[in-house]
């Protein structure tokens, strides 16, 4: 047996389901977006669904809005997660065990996290009540309108809360392998705590942070659980639009739902490729310095 065929054989437990189910699934989604292989024959032209979307200004608004919510929440989750992970890593042993509570939101489903955000941040929520008790506000309408500002802040808060422990998990895995003596050395050489963090620790953690960002960003971009609870009427999230098109309308609009999915898929793939290219170039640049 040649080495190539043995390689293929060894990869087949993963490669076969990947090709049949994942690639097959994406292929069917793309086909249906062109009105082919739909459950019922589709009367329109091949690109009707795309024309419909591209001429709809609310589609663009939704797309940009979904991107914004995903980018801001992923960036803040990674930032907060990295800082907290570093702080936990520096905790003495016994306290570090207590710090394991950070894993709680990892277990909570997204929709429950959305529920928690709702309970805390609505104008009649816990924080508003606290502000009232402290005499900061007199009635609930004076509490800042966090959830319905039109900026998706509620969803950003929920994604950040859910994403932070995930980023922490990834960063912690890096930190475990990190040699504390490097910090001691830098310390002895007179570097400040801030300086140590930024020039010694952070570069080591970068790979975990990049991975975390990509995963969180793309998840928030495409998932529908949190928007289901926290999204506003306008602009809507893309995933909600797909859900409504798929489940709440008749089969004639199936190609439209699939076209949105195809665009989302294409974007996700492009994003992964572009992001890893940029990161690699940056890292090469750093290495040359």
């Amino acid at each position, binding site marked *: 047996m040649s080495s190539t065929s043995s390689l293929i054989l060894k990869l087949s437990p*993963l490669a076969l389901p990947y090709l049949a189910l994942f690639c097959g699934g*994406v292929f*069917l989604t793309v086909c249906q977006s062109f009105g082919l292989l739909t459950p019922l024959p589709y009367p329109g032209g091949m690109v009707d669904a795309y024309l419909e979307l591209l001429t709809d200004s609310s589609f663009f608004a939704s797309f940009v809005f979904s991107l914004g919510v995903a980018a801001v929440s992923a960036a803040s989750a990674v930032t907060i997660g990295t800082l907290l992970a570093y*702080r936990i890593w520096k905790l003495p042993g016994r306290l570090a065990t207590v710090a394991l509570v950070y894993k709680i939101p990892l*277990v909570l489903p997204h929709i429950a996290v959305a529920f928690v955000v709702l309970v805390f941040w609505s104008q009649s929520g816990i924080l508003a009540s606290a502000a009232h008790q402290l005499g900061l506000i007199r009635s609930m309408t004076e509490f800042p309108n966090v959830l319905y500002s039109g900026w998706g802040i509620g969803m950003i808060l929920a994604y950040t809360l859910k994403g932070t422990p995930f980023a922490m998990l990834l960063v912690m895995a890096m930190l475990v392998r990190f040699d504390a003596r490097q910090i001691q050395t830098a310390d002895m050489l007179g570097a400040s705590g801030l300086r140590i963090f930024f020039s010694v620790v952070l570069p080591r953690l970068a790979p975990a942070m990049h991975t975390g960002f990509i995963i969180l960003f793309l998840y928030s971009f*495409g998932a529908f659980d949190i928007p289901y609870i926290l999204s506003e009427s306008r602009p809507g999230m893309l995933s909600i639009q797909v859900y409504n098109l798929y489940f709440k309308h008749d089969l004639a609009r199936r190609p439209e739902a699939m076209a949105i*999915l195809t665009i989302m898929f294409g974007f996700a*793939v492009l994003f992964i490729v572009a992001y890893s290219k940029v990161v690699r170039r940056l890292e090469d640049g750093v290495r040359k310095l």
Partner: protein
Amino acid sequence: MKHLVTLLVLAMLFVLPVVVLMLIGLAPGWRFPHVWPDEFSPQAIAYLVRNHERILTSLSSSLLFSMLTVLATLPMCLIPAAVFARVDFPGKALVEGLLLTPALVPPMTFAMGLHYVFIKLSLTETMLGVVIMLAMFSYPYMFRALVAGFQSMGEDYRMCARNLGAGPLAIMLKVELPLLIPAVIAGGSVVFLVAFSEYFLVFLIGGGSVDSFTGTLFPLLSSSNRSLAAVLTLIFLFLPIALFVIMDTTLLRLYRKMQMI
């Protein structure tokens, strides 16, 4: 002092929500401007007791398909992970990147396309269909963990076993797999959590026939009965945590035993 601040921030972010969920569960009438509920009521607990059978059924169903998903991803990833950890071949980075995409792209993008095929194959409304779908987008976590596990194990054990005359199957089962257990647990935990907390795919493929705890929880979380929603969320939280604790302690005991022998 600095440590205290760290712990305080952690508590505010991650413990406070759980405390508040408990309070909501016990006090359905808790509303603005009270910071502490003025009245407690066992309504939600009573509902729980009345419906314990149904809740337990959906919990065990969720547990079952999540476990099966973990079990399905393991054989899928084991040999390919070994290859990725040890063999260099042209286009490896690309293939690895491609194999990780199912966890990155929105699962709706391929699940909705597959849905129709699953109906044709009578895989919808079956546990099997649900497990296939869940395994298909959660395996990258297992794969990554196993690749890392094989890398940190190195080649020495395998060489040694081979020199002592063990065949490839025996090496895999008796030498490598036991050494891989931490990696399997790490990957398996993530796969389990992903499967256990998934609502949409189970709903799409299971079509209501495959019971799931998220399926019970979801309509209630978006309803106005917040007390009940909070209590069910706490159960949801408790089960995986209990499972992980049990697993950790038994493993520890197992390791101690193995070393003693």
